[in-house]
């Protein structure tokens, strides 16, 4: 249903516009790329339209499950974005007065951060890091060792964890030469390598090997929880910033089709590396925060592959590529986990395995796509009413079907975006 109207729109926009047949008041894609009589070199007047082309093209790509960029989304999102940053912070800050299990609350906060990190790397850039937890674990160890060996105050040690996460993220950057499933499995293997190195009895002098670390001296429940809450805000703010920026647009473009993105002037390796490093920094700080608040941990707990898997599932369930999705997904599924999962882990595993399969098969956009579906269905109703009026008004005019009307609307909305957006080339 959701697809139908837009698929029509895509067909019509995509093909006609390519030929320059739709009068959008601006040169069509084909016209922009190959004007007769030009030598093919980029000149500034043509580069102006490129971002517009990218947006327009993205708005027609809806089957990825990632929300299309359109004017209405953009207008609404101010309100929803700022509330996505503030709401979880306020909620997490108030929760301890109702529910005093700090370990669960910390996990909830950490999972929101990790899910937002996955959101940046997969939801926007399209790389699924199964081994994301490797960075988390390195952050946990780096933060703890900074407290234990360098005697840094814990708040500074958190940043140290973030730096370590970024460094290990940089080391793993060559993995981005792979894509799709290869990337996913290679990161998984990389995180297992990291775990086995940290875990190794030969390194017992540094990491205490399989016996883990204890931060009992630096333990501070209130302060660590407060930093976790702030971190949730920072992570969501980062996602919002990515979502609203040219950078995020570039990421969505390269996710849809790297070659075309490259053609549109996006520096693909640069942009995807930046996305990954943002996510790595978040995971590093999250790891350090987790270590600080949990105070005693083992390699098997901070490098546990189920952490990145949970984060992926939560983000998928809520909706990739949105600011709210990972928050909602983590809230619902982790809430469910703390009710069912702790007493009957196998039943929970069965349930969430089924949930993952259902989400991937039937609504890859997650909860966010359901919300969008209902919003769209309201729009569709309005369109249908409108088309009826048009039909009645123009007595026996040519039949107008709602599909083509929808696309006309889309053309109008796209022009709005175009005016706002056409400021220069994306990337470098």
């Amino acid at each position, binding site marked *: 249903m959701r697809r139908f109207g837009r698929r029509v729109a895509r067909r019509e926009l995509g093909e006609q516009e390519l030929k320059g047949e739709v009068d959008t008041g601006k040169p069509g894609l084909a016209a922009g790329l190959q004007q007769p009589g030009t030598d093919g070199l980029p000149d500034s007047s043509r580069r102006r339209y490129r971002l517009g082309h990218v947006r327009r093209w993205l708005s027609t*790509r809806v*089957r*990825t*499950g990632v929300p299309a960029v359109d004017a209405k989304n953009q207008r609404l999102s101010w309100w929803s974005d700022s509330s996505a940053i503030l709401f979880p912070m306020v909620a997490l800050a108030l929760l301890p007065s109702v529910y005093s299990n700090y370990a669960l609350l910390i996990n909830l906060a950490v999972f929101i951060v990790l899910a937002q990190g996955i959101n940046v790397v*997969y939801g926007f850039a*399209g790389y*699924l890091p199964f081994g994301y937890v490797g960075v988390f674990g390195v952050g946990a160890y780096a933060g703890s060792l900074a407290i234990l060996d360098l005697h840094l105050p814990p708040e500074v040690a958190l940043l140290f964890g973030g730096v370590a996460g970024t460094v290990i993220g940089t080391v793993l950057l*060559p*993995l981005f*030469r*792979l*894509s*799709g*499933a*290869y*990337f*996913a*499995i*290679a990161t*998984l*293997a*990389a995180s*297992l*390598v990291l775990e*086995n*190195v940290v875990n*190794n*009895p*030969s390194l017992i002098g540094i990491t205490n090997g399989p016996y883990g670390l204890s931060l009992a001296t630096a333990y501070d429940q209130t302060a660590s929880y407060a930093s976790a809450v702030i971190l949730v805000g920072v992570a969501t703010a980062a996602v919002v910033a990515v979502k609203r920026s040219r950078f995020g647009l570039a990421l969505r473009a390269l996710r*849809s089709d790297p070659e075309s993105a490259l053609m549109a002037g996006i520096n693909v390796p640069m942009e995807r590396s930046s996305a990954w490093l943002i996510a790595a920094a978040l995971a590093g700080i999250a790891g350090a925060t987790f270590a600080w608040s949990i105070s005693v941990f083992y390699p098997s707990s901070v490098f546990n*592959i189920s952490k990145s*898997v949970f984060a*992926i599932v939560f983000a*998928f369930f809520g909706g990739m590529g949105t600011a709210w999705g990972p928050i909602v997904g983590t809230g619902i599924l982790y809430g469910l986990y703390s009710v069912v999962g702790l007493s009957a*882990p*196998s*039943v929970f*595993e*069965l349930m*969430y*395995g*089924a*949930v*993952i*399969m259902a989400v*991937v*098969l039937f609504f*890859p956009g997650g909860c966010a796509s359901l919300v969008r579906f209902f919003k769209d269905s309201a729009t569709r109703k309005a369109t249908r009413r409108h088309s009826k009026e048009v039909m009645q008004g123009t007595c026996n005019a040519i039949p107008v079907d709602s599909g083509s009307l929808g696309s006309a609307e889309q053309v109008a909305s796209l022009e709005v975006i175009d005016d706002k957006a056409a400021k220069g080339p994306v990337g470098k």
Partner: protein
Amino acid sequence: MLEYALVTGILLGVFYGLLASGLNLVFGMQRIVNIAHGDFVMLGAFLSWEVYYGLGVNPLIAAPLAIVPAIALGYAWSRGVLSRFNGRQDAETLSLVLFFGLSQVIEAIESLEFGTNPRSIPGSTVLAAPIHLAGRTYPAALWVVAGCSLVVLLVFLLWLYKSRVGFGMRAIMADRLEAAVVGVNVARISSLSFGIGVALAAVAGAFYGPVLGAVAPNQGLAITTIAFAIIVLGSLGNPVGALVGGLIFSVVTQFTFVYASSWANVIPYAIVVVVMLLRPAGLIGRRVRNA
């Protein structure tokens, strides 16, 4: 010590080749990574345990019986569920997540049905007497299982290279579109290959206990990673690659166990990362993937 490690490595390597070949076949045919492969192996292992202790049937005899139901199951899954991804953007990553969900479901069902504790299937279930060779004593199960694995692998390869359906499979591996153009029934044969992949996993599962000892529901992902390391090493999608990769992997692991035992666990994962980055086509060439 040296020749013991070498012989054990080679014997285990044949078994590892069988373990990885199902994953390799599915990858070669459909270009998807079956994360649930290891869980199919575990499922096979648990069922063979049940059959052995419930009915007293030797795992080696139980293994062939699993083939037909496994093929049916895999065929139905591929036809009914996987085909939904056809033509969808991002199908590769989505199918990865889908298989992950499946792997969780299988693991959970195993935990509910058989419990989370590891179950051991001693090698003596296959053949009790130890084998003496050149002054060393080897567990007999190792030899028997390696022999059986080799037979299964040879039958599979022979079928793949000689039969009509196998011919179609290799055509699809070479080029899906062109195979369809010349009249290969791509949808049906792909699904069949998925079924065969599951069947190979189940057979490997029945052999798993007697060779490597205990089985537990949560080993699935680790087995998948090892199998993936093997086929990356061999060369993704190349049917013979799994055997070559298995042999190399196993011998290297055995030597690491002898000379630097604490690092032995890192080997499979380091292999994946290094080979993927340095020689993405695998060690015996034939580039099949575009990454």
